[in-house]
């Protein structure tokens, strides 16, 4: 048996396998027998490519309860976040220089805010409560007359904690503040109704919910004062907001991914909830184990656990052949404790011991049971290896 055969993948928050139906749809837009033409071309083949893209936009719009015209295709959530934050701040810079976000956001959000700080914007960095959630009253207290942009993620990529974007967005809308939501972890996994939600900008990506890598989208609300300046120049595509040849096969894949998600979201959530609860029941008896974030307010596909007196890197190796994450996948080569977990008030040692288990459609109960066994035995081994603290 090879390592690959024994491997148990529990890192679906990092990326997911492409759904077979999605792959099939994509191939139609890639090969000589399909619609491979440049969608900017005016000939018949180009027009067919445009039709495929329009259909995909319709599928994603249906998932999100919005209009296809409100969607801008990007290369992924990182580009969408950059376009939303840098683009909106630039467009609205004369309306105010104050921006608000959380310390627990993904780097794709915190880094653009740091960049804006260097450019002279005043950024308020909010800490979460111990359960990972943002206190609504405390948030309201940070909003000022010159606040022009707020960015809060929907589902945290490390802890799975869900923020109350409806209440946060309402406060922003009342004050004419643009509200951006990073929905990289929630698009296609939780119901999102952009017709009803007070959200102005929303970032998404396909590969987190069984679509291809390399394709994302930014929702831009049709509302006065909501606009983003482009980051790229070089063509007239997408109303000049994001120029460049549209990758038909990627967009078709994203649309098909949205279609699959819409048809089975409730089933997916039930499946993930059963797996997450089974896993936590299996390990919660271990002394010193704790959940990072609130299990009552988190997406069931992600559970992040720390454990006392265990070194994180050794735990990760001892857990093989489980494929899990310490910190976020984008940050996991760093030996620094997760900044997200530190913001939750975890000590360096507890943050460093944290493992994110994330479940997906293909995850089975047997895999979860194996993960429980491996976690328990790894903890036993490493606790035997660990010495007492010096007197």
């Amino acid at each position, binding site marked *: 048996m090879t390592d690959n055969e024994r491997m148990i993948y529990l890192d679906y928050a990092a990326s997911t396998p492409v759904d077979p139906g999605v792959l099939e749809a994509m191939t139609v837009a890639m090969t000589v027998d399909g619609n491979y033409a440049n969608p900017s071309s005016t000939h018949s083949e180009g027009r067919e490519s445009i039709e495929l893209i329009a259909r995909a936009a319709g599928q994603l719009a249906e998932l999100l309860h919005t209009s296809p015209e409100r969607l801008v295709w990007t290369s992924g959530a990182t580009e969408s976040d950059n376009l939303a934050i840098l683009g909106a701040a630039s467009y609205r810079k004369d309306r105010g220089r104050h921006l608000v976000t959380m310390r627990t956001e993904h780097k794709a959000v915190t880094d653009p805010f740091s960049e804006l700080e260097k450019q002279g914007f005043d950024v308020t960095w909010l800490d979460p409560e111990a359960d990972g959630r943002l206190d609504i009253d405390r948030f309201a207290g940070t909003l000022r007359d010159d606040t022009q942009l707020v960015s809060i993620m929907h589902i945290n990529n490390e802890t799975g904690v869900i923020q109350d974007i409806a209440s946060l967005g309402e406060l922003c809308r009342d004050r004419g503040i643009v509200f951006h939501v990073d929905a990289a972890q929630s698009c296609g996994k939780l119901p999102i109704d952009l017709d009803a939600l007070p959200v102005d900008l929303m970032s998404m990506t396909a590969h987190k919910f069984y679509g291809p890598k390399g394709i994302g989208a930014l929702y831009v609300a049709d509302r006065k004062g909501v606009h983003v300046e482009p980051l790229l120049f070089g063509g007239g595509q997408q109303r000049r907001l994001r120029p460049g040849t549209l990758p038909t096969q990627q967009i078709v894949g994203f649309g098909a991914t949205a279609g699959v998600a819409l048809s089975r979201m409730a089933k997916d959530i039930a499946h993930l909830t059963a797996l997450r609860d089974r896993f936590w029941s299996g390990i919660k008896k271990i002394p010193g184990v704790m959940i990072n974030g609130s299990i009552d307010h988190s997406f069931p596909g992600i559970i992040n656990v720390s454990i006392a007196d265990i070194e994180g890197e*050794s735990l990760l190796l001892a857990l093989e052949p489980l494929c899990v994450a310490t910190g976020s996948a984008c940050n996991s080569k760093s030996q620094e404790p997760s900044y997200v977990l530190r913001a939750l008030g975890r000590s360096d040692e507890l943050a460093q011991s944290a493992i994110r288990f994330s479940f997906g459609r293909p995850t089975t109960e047997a895999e979860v049971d194996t993960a429980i066994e491996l976690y328990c035995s790894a903890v036993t081994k490493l606790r035997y290896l660990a010495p007492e603290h010096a007197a």
Partner: protein
Amino acid sequence: MSTDPYSPRVRALFAQPAHAGTLEGPCRAVVDEQNLRIRLFATLENDRIAALRFKAWACPHVIAAAEAFCTEFEGRPMEELLDFSTSDLMQSLPVPVEKTGRILVLEDAVRSLGSVVRETLNPDSEED
């Protein structure tokens, strides 16, 4: 080029640390540095190291290095503890250069054990 941060030898030593544990007696070293905790234990027989054990709260490379040290030094003259250098282990395991600081904590622990052993055998001797 391998993308695996752990060599087969590091993996093997980490998976089966046969020298993990403790030994009774006065010959022990305690070092807590760089967010690591290392304990070394030794028993002696005729100026030679009869047995070595270790405990460690550390990354896999340090645990593997501690296991390799214990395996290689059992049976050797106790004086060699004082001259222990991690440079050979760094190359043979190997250990990535960014973890040099961590491995030097093991070196400190071994030399500390050497000093304790020498003091145990010659309680009246003075430090060099």
